[in-house]
């Protein structure tokens, strides 16, 4: 038994080495002509997964324009762009690519985007990533993609980027012809994860800095605000954030459960909370349903709001006396969203925009998202005064348009949000389970502008 096991281990090692030597020749050719590699567009992805090709291409352009290639090759190795991966990020925000020296993956290069700047970071310390790329490049036929874990998350806090996406793959060792014995393929599942807070390189240095003097040791430098200018950044990252939230099947299910005629016909509100908890240093979400008491006009937030990063509730059509309800968010909704969900998202994810708040109605569903730079708890505005302004505006509408068409209601609400609330970064989207459009108020034209998220 032991002898058999030893023999099989030997076979595995032999197989791995022979496969590696086969692949080496091709790669050596590539390394011999690095300038060709650089200038060529990424002709074909050799990743196991679908990648954000747009981002990879644009990052390559930035790199080609700014990098001191001979220094990079000497210091880190040759970048193998065909193997660049964006780890399920499709918002032009992140990539990781292997860097080879002497036919071995010795470094990885990660490129982060923050608005219109990209930041390059070489690392030789991520053994897991190096091993993965080594396998992918030299034993390409021996790896296959596995479904990614359902849970993925990318969060950022000031000055850092956390990418916590795991990709699974299976490593297979096939039987070796002529080796004899009763062999069958051996499979092992591995996972590549980026799960650490990484400080953004604040300097202009594309390569490493001298740890003592802080001077750029080469690789390319930019000037000014750090990082490198990224061409034509996505116009509206916010849309991507909304779509990311709606694409979470758990959030979608909660939304769908609220968005029913049965709920709109009730004389009380129906709701759910999303609570984020830290478990083993990872953010884990759970969802709790809630309802208001029958024939009453309130719904209670939990007493302890720590970790409540998402909330959804209905505005039913009528109260139990048959009076119409407004089918747009209220001042209390704005208050609750900013003071609880946006704030808690900042605490747990380092990103206020991770918080969300649905108001689901028969006239359409609205979602708040906060992308402002000021902490929600530091925003100063007078809710007491806002309540009065809100009521004045809607009562005026009721006077002139007793039918209260949803278009007019929406217009008044957007005017209120723009002219009375006026918080930078407080965004509202009209959403369905599968789509979103950003809605804004154009004060000059006195109209609501709706921009569908692509």
């Amino acid at each position, binding site marked *: 038994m032991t002898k058999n096991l030893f023999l099989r281990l030997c076979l595995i090692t032999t197989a791995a080495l022979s496969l590696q030597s086969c692949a080496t020749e091709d790669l050596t050719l590539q390394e011999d002509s690095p300038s060709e590699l650089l200038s060529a567009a990424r002709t074909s992805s050799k990743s196991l997964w679908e990648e954000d090709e747009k981002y990879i291409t644009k990052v390559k352009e930035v790199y080609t324009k700014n990098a001191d290639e001979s220094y990079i090759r000497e210091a880190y190795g040759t970048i193998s762009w065909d193997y660049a991966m964006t780890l399920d990020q499709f918002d032009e925000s992140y990539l990781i690519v292997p860097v080879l020296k002497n036919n071995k993956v010795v470094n990885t290069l990660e490129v982060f985007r923050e608005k219109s700047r990209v930041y390059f970071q070489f690392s030789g310390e991520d053994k897991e990533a190096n091993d993965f790329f080594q396998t992918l490049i030299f034993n390409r036929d021996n790896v296959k993609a596995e479904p990614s874990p359902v849970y993925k998350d990318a969060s950022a806090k000031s000055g850092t980027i956390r990418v916590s996406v795991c990709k699974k793959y299976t490593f297979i060792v096939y039987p070796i012809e002529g080796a004899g014995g009763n062999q069958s393929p051996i499979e092992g599942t591995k996972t590549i994860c980026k799960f650490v807070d990484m400080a953004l390189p604040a300097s202009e240095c594309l390569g490493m800095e001298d740890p003592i003097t802080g001077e750029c040791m080469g690789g390319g430098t930019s000037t000014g605000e750090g990082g490198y200018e990224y061409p034509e950044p996505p116009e509206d990252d916010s849309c991507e954030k909304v779509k990311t939230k709606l694409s979470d099947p758990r959030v979608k299910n909660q939304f769908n459960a609220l968005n029913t005629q049965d709920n709109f016909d009730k004389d009380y509100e129906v709701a759910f909370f999303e609570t984020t908890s830290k478990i083993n240093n990872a953010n884990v979400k759970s969802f709790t349903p809630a309802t208001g008491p029958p024939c009453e006009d*309130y*719904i209670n*937030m939990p007493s302890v*709001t720590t970790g409540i990063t998402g909330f959804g509730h209905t505005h039913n059509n009528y109260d139990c006396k048959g*009076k119409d309800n407004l089918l747009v968010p*209220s001042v*209390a909704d704005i208050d609750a969203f900013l003071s609880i969900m946006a704030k808690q998202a900042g605490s747990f994810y380092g990103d206020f925009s991770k918080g969300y708040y649905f108001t689901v109605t028969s006239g359409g569903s609205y979602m708040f998202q906060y992308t402002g730079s000021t902490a929600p708890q530091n925003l100063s505005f007078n809710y007491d005064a806002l309540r009065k302004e809100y*009521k004045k505006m809607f009562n005026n509408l009721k006077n002139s348009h*007793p039918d209260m068409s949803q278009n007019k209601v929406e217009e008044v609400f957007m005017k209120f949000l723009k002219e009375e609330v006026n918080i930078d970064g407080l965004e509202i989207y009209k959403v369905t389970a599968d789509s979103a459009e950003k809605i804004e108020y154009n004060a000059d034209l006195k109209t609501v502008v709706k921009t569908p998220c692509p």
Partner: protein
Amino acid sequence: MKNIILLLLLAISCRSYTQQTIVPLRTYTDIPENAGYYRKDTNNELQAFEGTWKATWNNKTIFITFKKIINKYNTAMKYNEDIIIGKFKTVDSNGSILFDNTLVSDNDAKIEGTGFQNITDKYLMYYVDNDLCGITGDIELTFVNTAKTQLNFSYHQDSMVLTSSCYFHGWPAADRPKPLPKGDIVLTKQ
């Protein structure tokens, strides 16, 4: 010199007064913002609401006083208008005061009118009570009799999300403050 200053002040005040463009209270088209418009009670319809009114419901009695305010700037709509404001006192069956905002200034009145509704002829008001965690609601007033001594008071309280910062968060529904009668009730002029 004094006379010149006085004349100047008089001229300025006359000018600013005459700059107002008066439109009737029942104007339902858009009124330009901050353009000197005054939505005036030209037919003197608001007069009939003025005074103290009383009603009883659920062993509670409300005394509500309506008062006409002239030429007040509407900060949301950005024009001037004539409106009715309301202040009330609610007592229980023993006469103990449950709610009383009769002493607040006119500017801080919790009930404020916004005008007659097109077609229905109801006079609409809103209620905002920042002392009760920001409860808000709408009131519709309609005279019940031709003598205008009885007034239908129809109140709808808005739904709200209650956070733990509100003092009655988590209280049973029956114990929560209910300052105004929900639904319809008839007020009688005192």
